[in-house]
């Protein structure tokens, strides 16, 4: 009896000791890798911001860290608002944001990471088309113009076989079905850019302006891009808006630009950024694009989300300046943009933007 009790206690003790050794920190040193030629960068680069760029930043990080094995890049997808604030407060060396800083913010905020009186560099590094997706049996594509889309999402047009829709889609069999709109329940840059498009092109129909949180209570709400896509897929006669990379094989809308109906495509999405002017009143490195959603140029798709990478023009720390320059150069390079397109479904930036962005990146220096 005594022996079996001692044996039991010993067994428990042995198991506990084995379990605790499993918690020991991994002390094995990482394998020394042979650095490729020309790589002199090392250190840690900490940034954060837009969750829309998360997958693209991961692709750029992978490329950058492969070329510079001693570098670690950390990106915290805490949201554009948090990214901008933390960048200004000095917690991040660079930020990702679905909108550029407003000029009022630039004059009011002080940027702790940057050297005093320095400007900031903002480059449009991530372009993502927003597709209007719908689920109708037997219909793969619909032609709609901005006023009709606005009326649908306002709740003014309630049936699929409404004459306004039929007028633009001759030959398409539209059922007598109620339209169910699906929108994002969370605050989102996708909503912001979609409503920006509606208020710019159909401001008399869409009266809620450009907002990041859907302003109307009516209609289905879903969480995140995947939620919207699932809601549209699972419903009947549903229509919603989501990042084009996740549209799958749902029907999509070709939007009227000028006289043609343009379907979304990476080239068309990049074309609208080319066709839009830069905002004035900003520094040399600040390439905030004033998207011209009403542009009538051929082959542009105006419903896009443009996400920026933001950095200082002058860093107090020389090493940080080099790291940021290297990372941004990887991001806008053709290889980087293609990697992001493959991973995240974004539209690669055009060469025009690349040249301008590279000029802005070259301004990054240390004091």
């Amino acid at each position: 009896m005594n022996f079996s009790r001692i044996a039991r206690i010993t067994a428990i003790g042995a198991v506990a000791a084995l379990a605790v050794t499993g918690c020991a920190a991994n002390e094995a040193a990482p394998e020394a890798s042979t650095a490729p030629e020309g790589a002199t960068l090392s250190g840690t680069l900490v940034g954060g911001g837009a969750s829309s760029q998360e997958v693209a930043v991961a692709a750029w990080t992978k490329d950058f860290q492969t070329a510079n094995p001693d570098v670690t890049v950390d990106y915290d997808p805490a949201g554009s608002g948090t990214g901008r604030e933390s960048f200004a407060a000095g917690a991040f060396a660079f930020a990702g944001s679905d909108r550029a800083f407003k000029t009022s913010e630039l004059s009011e905020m002080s940027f702790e990471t940057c050297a005093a009186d320095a400007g900031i560099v903002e480059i449009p590094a991530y372009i993502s088309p927003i597709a209007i997706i719908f689920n109708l049996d037997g219909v793969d594509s619909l032609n709609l113009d901005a006023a009709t889309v606005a009326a649908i999402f306002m709740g003014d047009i309630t049936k699929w076989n409404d004459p306004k829709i039929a007028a633009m889609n001759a030959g398409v069999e539209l059922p007598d079905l109620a339209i169910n709109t699906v929108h994002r329940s969370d605050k989102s840059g996708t909503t912001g850019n979609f409503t920006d498009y509606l208020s710019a092109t159909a401001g008399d129909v869409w009266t809620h302006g450009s907002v990041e949180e859907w302003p109307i209570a009516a209609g289905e709400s879903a969480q995140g891009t995947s939620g919207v896509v699932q809601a549209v897929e699972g419903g009947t006669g549903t229509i919603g808006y989501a990042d084009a990379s996740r549209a799958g094989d749902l029907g999509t809308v070709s939007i009227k630009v000028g006289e043609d109906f343009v379907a979304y495509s990476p080239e068309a999405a990049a074309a609208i950024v080319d066709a839009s002017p830069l905002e004035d009143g900003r520094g040399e490195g600040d390439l905030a694009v004033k998207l011209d959603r009403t542009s009538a140029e051929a082959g542009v798709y105006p419903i896009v989300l443009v996400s920026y990478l933001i950095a200082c023009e002058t860093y107090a720390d020389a090493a940080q300046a080099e790291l940021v320059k290297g990372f941004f150069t990887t991001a806008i390079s053709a290889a980087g943009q293609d990697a992001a397109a493959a991973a995240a479904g974004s539209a690669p930036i055009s060469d025009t933007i690349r040249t301008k962005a590279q000029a802005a990146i070259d301004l990054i220096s240390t004091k």
Partner: protein
Amino acid sequence: MTTTVSAPASAPAKVAQRPGDRWFSGSALFAGSMILVTLAAVAVFLFVQSIPGITATGEEASILKDGDFWDYVAPLAFGTVWAAALALVMAVPLSIAVALFISHYAPRKLSQSLGYVVDLLAAVPSVVFGLWGIGVLAPAVQPAYSWLVDNAGWFPLFAGPASGTGRTIFTAAVVLAVMVLPIMTAICREIFLQTPSLHEEAALALGATRWEMIRMAVLPFARGGIVSAAMLGLGRALGETMAVAMVLSASGGINFRLFTAENPNTIPANIAQTFPEAYGLNVNVLIATGLILFIVTFLVNAIARVIVNRRKDFSGAN
């Protein structure tokens, strides 16, 4: 004959305590006090972190928009209680029925395997229930919702417009009911099996049918246990996060319509959806909504306990 009245006994001699007694009572005391300490720690955390949120205004905490904290939390609290109440209305009778079937009606083999299957249902993660809800249940019930709205739309609960995807508060309540069913059934089953067999046999001997025996001997005995089971189920239904977050289309305020797409959100689902992108005072506001949920659960449990204790003297257990 005088009866001898013995002098009041002196305090009974202290029972010899072995080390095992001391260890066991000590660890039981420790475990009990740890529960209280944990609960107190959670409550203190909630209180301390919520105070800045409760007093915040719309400018300080962007999540509040134009109103104050109470405007923000009122529809959420309503949605939580409404969804949980609907779920319990569906689940409690069903779980009592299943438990009665397992304990009193089914042949032994069937009851064992049925009990096993019900316990398995408790092991399914809530995310899987959420996926099942949006993938299978919502599309399947959507035609029923449309039909009810078209034909019985005069009834306030069934007012339209019907949701096109079926992701309504009623669907969320059905998913919640499926999730709380196994817990309640397991507890009720154990309680029903504990009924003193003498009571049951006495009822049968008096000529009662099986249902009358259950009504006379089993259910009164089990009343306290059924309420405990329902409270456990209610706690789970009130706190369920992922399943509701995935299934519910939450864009509305306080309303009683079951089949529309404008439903009030629930507090845990709202926290799960909003917390990732929240910063600053918004986090405090969200924690404050958690505190409200804590208080609501506490109140409902207290009310249930009071109801049970008032009838304690009449229950079959005494």
